């Protein structure tokens, strides 16, 4: 207690007398964050404002800034009537709606499993986390080979059960294949976050539950799950945002096909902007998507309010 008082007093002294040459002015703090701030302005703020402005224009990039023609709400009216856009919205909802809950559920299960004393637990944790840090091109190419409908390992195994999905060579199976890959890539990350949350779970409640004779399921339902709820919401929000913007694997493996079966909203936006050179329309799609994801995030966020376990 006495030591704490001394340290606090020293801190106060430093604050009162900063010493020669050091001025506790706000701009010094700015100086430190300046490089990052410049990056945010150049690579986030300016593009964001540009997208908002361009959403109300007809522009093809090649014509230069002089070629920008403001067209009011035309882009948004066109979006409302665009079957390609609504198809992409539907596919994105399926992709997000299936891959995110699956990733979180499996991540939770894995997190709980890896939280128990197991032989080689550290190695197992590293193995499960590996997909999250491996290069996306390597992942894509590996899965492309694994899921080859004729010679791939996956179908050789499934053949035992009489199943032969076409995976990336079928408009019915391409999206499920991407979901499998997304789940595989995200589970390790989720389990790691859950693991750290499980370390913080209140031990005394488990002890009390043991004394009361509560079973495994009862302890999970009443203690574990409520204590993990903030983590779950964090994962849901970040994964929803990430999956809504999912682009890399689609661009690499399916290019939105076969047909338009994997043309999610982010890939549709890319096609519109960078293949059709309709940058105004693509910006409008971006803006609508931004609002959609924001709403989805807020709904998820609000759903957990008051349900978390607080110490």
């Amino acid at each position, binding site marked *: 207690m006495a030591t704490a008082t001394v340290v606090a007093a020293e801190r106060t002294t430093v604050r009162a007398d900063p010493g020669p040459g050091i001025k506790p*002015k706000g701009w010094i703090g700015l*100086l430190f964050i300046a490089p990052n701030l410049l990056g945010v302005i150049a690579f986030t703020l300016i593009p964001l404002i540009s997208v908002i402005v361009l959403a109300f224009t007809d522009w093809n990039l*090649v*014509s230069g800034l002089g070629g920008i023609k403001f067209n009011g709400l035309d882009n948004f009216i066109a979006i409302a009537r665009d079957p390609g856009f609504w198809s992409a919205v539907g596919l994105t909802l399926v992709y997000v709606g299936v891959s995110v809950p699956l990733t979180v559920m499996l991540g939770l299960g894995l997190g709980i499993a890896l939280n128990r004393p197991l032989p080689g637990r550290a190695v197992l944790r590293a193995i499960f986390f590996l997909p999250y840090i491996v290069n996306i091109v390597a992942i894509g190419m590996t899965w*492309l080979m694994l899921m080859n*409908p004729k010679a791939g390992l996956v179908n050789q195994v499934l053949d035992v059960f009489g199943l032969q999905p076409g995976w990336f060579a079928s*408009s019915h199976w391409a999206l499920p294949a991407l979901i499998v890959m997304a789940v595989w890539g995200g589970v390790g990350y989720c389990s790691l976050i859950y693991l750290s949350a499980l370390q913080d779970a209140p031990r005394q409640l488990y002890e009390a539950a043991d004394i009361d004779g509560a079973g495994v399921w009862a302890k999970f339902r009443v203690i574990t799950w409520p204590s993990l709820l903030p983590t779950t919401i964090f994962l849901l929000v970040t994964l929803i945002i990430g999956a809504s913007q999912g682009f890399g694997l689609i661009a690499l493996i399916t290019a939105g*096909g*076969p047909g338009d079966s994997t043309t999610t909203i982010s890939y549709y936006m890319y*096609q519109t902007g960078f293949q059709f050179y309709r940058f105004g329309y693509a910006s409008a799609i971006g803006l609508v998507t931004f609002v959609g994801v924001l709403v989805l995030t807020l709904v998820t966020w609000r759903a957990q309010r008051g349900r978390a376990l607080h110490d």
Partner: protein
Amino acid sequence: MRRKRFSRREVLAGLGAGALASVVPGCSGGGARSAVLQVWGGVPAASGPANVVKAFEQRFPQYKVNYTRFVNDARGNLKLDTALQGGVDIDVYFTYSPASLALRAGSGLAVDLTDRVTQDPQLKVFLDTDQPRAYLDNGRVKALATAREPFFVLFNEKLRQQAGVDLPQQWTIDEYRATAKKLTTANTIGAYTVPDVARIALGPNYWYDGDRSNFGDPHFEQNFRIGQDMIREGSAFPWTEVLARHLDSYQQNSFLGEEFHLWSTAPFNLRYLYDPKKFPHDFKVSFAPPPTVDGQDWNGGSYNNFVMVNPKSPKVDAAWEFVKFWLTEGSTPMLAGGKLPTLGNVTDDQVLTGMLGKEPEKYFDVDSFRRVVLDAEPKLATDTRLAGFPEITLAVKQQKDLCWLGEKDPGAAIREVRRVADAAIARNERSS
């Protein structure tokens, strides 16, 4: 020791200088104009351009040229577009896709070459509008095709002789299908795919009919249907394999691996067939012309590889000198990359050794090459109407995939293409 205190102004000035220093090098490519002629193209320098540049510098020692290669895909073209817009030092550049041609020419990114072409008798052919070799924007010449790319059908001679099939000198699309069927064995599929039936029947601008699309023409559905039928009967490569293995970009590997027999392709793929070290194989290759459709014989190929001069270039005269050299006396080295010069100003022997390697007889049936490539005068179809071109290209590809995977009826697929194409054309014509 006394520490120096920096004033707020000094720190801000330092920050500003730092920021400027970090920004200026990034802009140096944009602002500064070098004395060297800057040329951007999609063909790797080693496949011909480096030798064109070398020959040009020898012929015109007063000029120096720097050739920069961009990858001719969506990202590479975007890089070129932003470079052109951003004022990067580019004097001459190449355009390969029709969609980019229309965009760049229509957006003030190409010098009007009409007067220069008109004044030069050697280049008169570029004013021909029946089989256009130049891209005209509102009647003005904005781009010149440097290469002609006729299509042909390649045969694996070893497998052809084993199957006892005659090398066709003229054939119909039905005969093509029958031949593919005959060549199909337990180990080798008859053909990779079907030549573009509608293109052969309809020629240039075949997607357009007045102010609408032309997909009501039955040849489009016929093309999808023949492909679907051939895949079903096993005489064309299964589309599931094509998509699952991303085979469209690596067709040569499957041809060299004798996975399929008939290969409808163009000269740029010949480079894979005479390099035994990189692409080993033990068979000769022979040539047949593309099949005809309903008596029509448009070749699926076109005049291509359009060269353009950047209007922001301060060296337009030097740039034109280079363009003219590439088109005329400097065109020979490009044969190595499979680029037949538009003006045809090369000898047969130069074409033979340029396109078929140092030992043509070893890897090719040279007689059939002479007959199909050197002596024939294929009708090349170069599109000049390009409204909604990228949207239509994508719609055709998407529906073809569904059709050839056996998931969609060709009639329904073409109706969907037609819907997308009509909308794309209407929107483009409205906004232009």
